[in-house]
């Protein structure tokens, strides 16, 4: 349940006269400025239960406050202030005809204006380098709000809150080179300067954000280094897309687990009929249960130098894990030139089925076949994937069950959220009541 209230702002110990410039003077997110700053704060409810679908309670604030009023509204505000490199809504977009429904966008300026990658792409784990670009260098005007666990039973919003030492701030900032409207970055514990690597606590934060948004059109994604992350400072991405991603519609086949998942209630499936092989995690008695299982898998991958991408879908109920090898293939010269020419780096959104194309020719001629072929290059081979899957299970204490009839667990993939709002989906992803 969501309540918003104003609270009197508490001056921090470091608070000086408001008219004096604070910190380094640039009002950034570094240790110089952030601890003495005031930012809007959304303190989500620390409810161990899985979020329930919005009820018909009339006195409660609308369940869409977080996404629609706060996030989209603040994003629009930054757009009006000219903080983005371009207006993404001026970029043509379409669904590529075909069964999968890949989504293509023509964005001729994005790659020119994007921050270039500043580190080696063959290592998934690299230490944080304060000299390179990181989010502490970002101006606070790019921050929409802090997003942290409020520790209570309801979510609270404070339009101006001071940072305090006990709670390291996590922020939601705009992505100045957006892929779609509402493209933001979730940066857990920004002052801790964590490198781009998954840990359980941060992953849970990401799931909470998906749950607070409560709209299946709003997904979060993660790219490891080597899987086309461009900044080595821990961050997740999120944005709003009105249609299902192709990967969300693909069928899955549950992997029967004999041991290791009983307490958590998590279900793991294989992604079927999709160019990129992956695992699908869903269920879980609590968000934390689900977060822990996925995080453990990610941790094994990153410690074993296997690049991967993660898609957090269906308001945090379904998580896709894609180990990948495109960068390595690129380095070895094994990717066909015509695919390289389209200059699409397959990160999580591309793998999920949303392609940003840089040349009009590629956009006009984009076919499902092209998208499939590109993504097929990203996937681990069947053998390698099975090997990796086995390692993940072993490392995370999962034991696969023996099954006589493999068809028994076949699951027709449908884009079906498990909430009462299913009926809205024929019209696409719309604001939930």
């Amino acid at each position: 349940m969501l309540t918003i209230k104003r609270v009197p702002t508490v001056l921090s110990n470091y608070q000086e006269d408001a008219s004096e410039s604070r910190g380094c003077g640039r009002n950034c997110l570094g240790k110089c400025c952030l601890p003495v700053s005031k930012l809007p704060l959304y303190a989500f409810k620390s409810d161990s239960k899985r979020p329930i679908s919005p009820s018909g309670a009339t006195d409660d604030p609308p369940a869409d406050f977080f996404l629609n009023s706060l996030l989209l509204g603040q994003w629009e505000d930054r757009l009006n202030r000219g903080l983005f490199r371009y207006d993404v809504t001026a970029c043509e977009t379409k669904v590529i005809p075909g069964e999968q429904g890949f989504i293509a966008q023509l964005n001729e300026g994005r790659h020119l204006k994007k921050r270039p990658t500043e580190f080696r792409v063959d290592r998934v784990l690299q230490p944080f380098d304060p000299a390179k670009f990181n989010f502490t260098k970002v101006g606070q005007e790019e921050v929409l709000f802090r997003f942290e666990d409020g520790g209570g039973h309801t979510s609270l919003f404070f339009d101006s809150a001071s940072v305090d030492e006990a709670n390291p701030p996590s922020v939601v900032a705009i992505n100045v080179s957006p892929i779609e409207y509402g493209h933001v970055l979730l940066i857990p514990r920004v002052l801790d300067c964590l490198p781009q690597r998954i840990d359980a606590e941060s992953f849970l934060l990401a799931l909470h954000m998906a749950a607070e948004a409560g709209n299946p059109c709003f997904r979060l994604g993660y790219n490891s280094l080597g899987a086309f992350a461009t900044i080595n400072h821990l961050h997740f991405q999120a944005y709003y897309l009105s249609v299902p991603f192709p990967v969300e519609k693909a069928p899955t086949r549950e992997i029967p687990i004999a041991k290791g998942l009983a307490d958590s209630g998590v279900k793991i499936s294989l992604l079927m009929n999709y160019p990129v092989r992956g695992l699908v995690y869903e269920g879980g008695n609590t968000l934390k249960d689900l977060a822990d299982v996925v995080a453990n898998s990610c941790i094994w991958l990153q410690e074993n130098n296997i690049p991967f991408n993660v898609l957090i879908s269906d308001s945090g109920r379904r998580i896709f894990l894609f180990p990948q090898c495109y960068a390595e293939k690129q380095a070895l010269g094994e990717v066909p030139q015509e695919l390289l020419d389209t200059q699409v780096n397959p990160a999580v959104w591309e793998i999920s089925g949303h392609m940003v194309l840089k040349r009009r020719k590629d956009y006009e001629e984009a076919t499902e076949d092209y998208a499939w072929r590109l993504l097929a290059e990203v996937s681990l081979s069947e053998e390698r994937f099975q090997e990796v899957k086995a390692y993940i299970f072993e490392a995370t204490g999962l034991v696969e069950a023996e099954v006589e009839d493999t068809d028994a667990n076949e699951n027709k993939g449908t884009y079906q959220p498990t909430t009462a709002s299913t009926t809205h989906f024929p019209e696409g992803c719309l604001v939930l009541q």
Partner: protein
Amino acid sequence: MVALRLCPIATIHDHTGTSPPPAAVAMAEGMGTCRDRLIDQSLTARYSGWILEALDELPDNFLISDPVISGHPIVFASRGFLAMSGYAREEVVGRNGRIFQGPATDRRSVMEIREAIREERTLQISLLNYRKDGTPHWILFHLCPVFAMEDGRVIHFVAVQVPIPRQSRCSRSGEREMVFGTCRNEVRLDEDCGCNLAVDSFLDMDNKGLDAEESCKASDREKEKALNAATSILSTMTHYSKLTGRVVCTKRCSSAGIVPLSSSLNISLGRIKQSFVLTDPHLPDMPIVYASDEFLSLTGYSRHEVLGCNCRFLHGPGTDAGVLQQIKDCIRAEQACSVRLLNYRKDGSSFGNLLHISPVRDASGKIAFYVEVQIDENSKSDEHGLSPKMRQLGVVGQVKVAVRSLSSRAGPSRTSS
């Protein structure tokens, strides 16, 4: 004067010019009566049998015509009109309105009326009309289209005539000659300006009392009278149209010009519980194509009264012209803007409107609409502690996402054109 029965069939005679076979005559007669029936039923079919009585009770001078029937005939003439013009009802019903024009009627005015009819819009114009006895008189002519709500077609025109009394002369002494010159040319060249009355009776203008120096400009009093008359006639027609269920409205609700929003987009927009409208900059006069329920309750209008109209109906005497110009400039520059201006509700009360306007693009990347989000500055602040500004921008964000949506290609497709 003989009331002619206009026959829509060009000819029923064969080439030799002999009299038509009886069947053909019967058919012609049948056609004639068929048209008569259409004329008779023009009002009752849509407004019920009660309409004639109701219209007869109105004191104003007016005609109602039906553009759907060939020849665009008059289907109703008020008592006041008949008294003013000297005609009997059966001499007027079934005829086209041009019968009241004459040699000295300004050709340009006639063309303006024709334009307005063709463009299906309101017009108020001073006009020289002729009574049955041939005497000319100046009237303020006020034309209003009436639209069928179901498909936005024009189904009737209401023409109110308010006599303009003779007042102090305008300085137009030199134009007397010109008026006659125009008249002669008009009679000679313009077959369409059908003068059914004898030409020569108009050449002797002095005797007939035409005075080119006569006041031809309507005062505010006449204009107001015309407007009030039109309003009461239209509201009578609207009221009675509800009895048959074939409701009419005075503004176009869904015209051929306005592409209806896709149901998908309508549904998305319907979930945004704030006051806002979408306007279409590609249509003439940038009409409203969507209005939220909250907008209607804020302003007091009903949906069919605002769809198809430009937002200027919210403006009034206290609305700052400078702010309006600012808005125009922003729209021309395709920029968002935030202003504060005084707006007026339907009941005439005013409110300070914190208005935010922003262009909205669809999936083609091109501007499809403008969204205008209104906040009554006196409304109590949101209990969520969210500033009005934040709420406004939230609306803009939701609208942008909805219009850009790829789901069912929401919104009109502009790329095909």
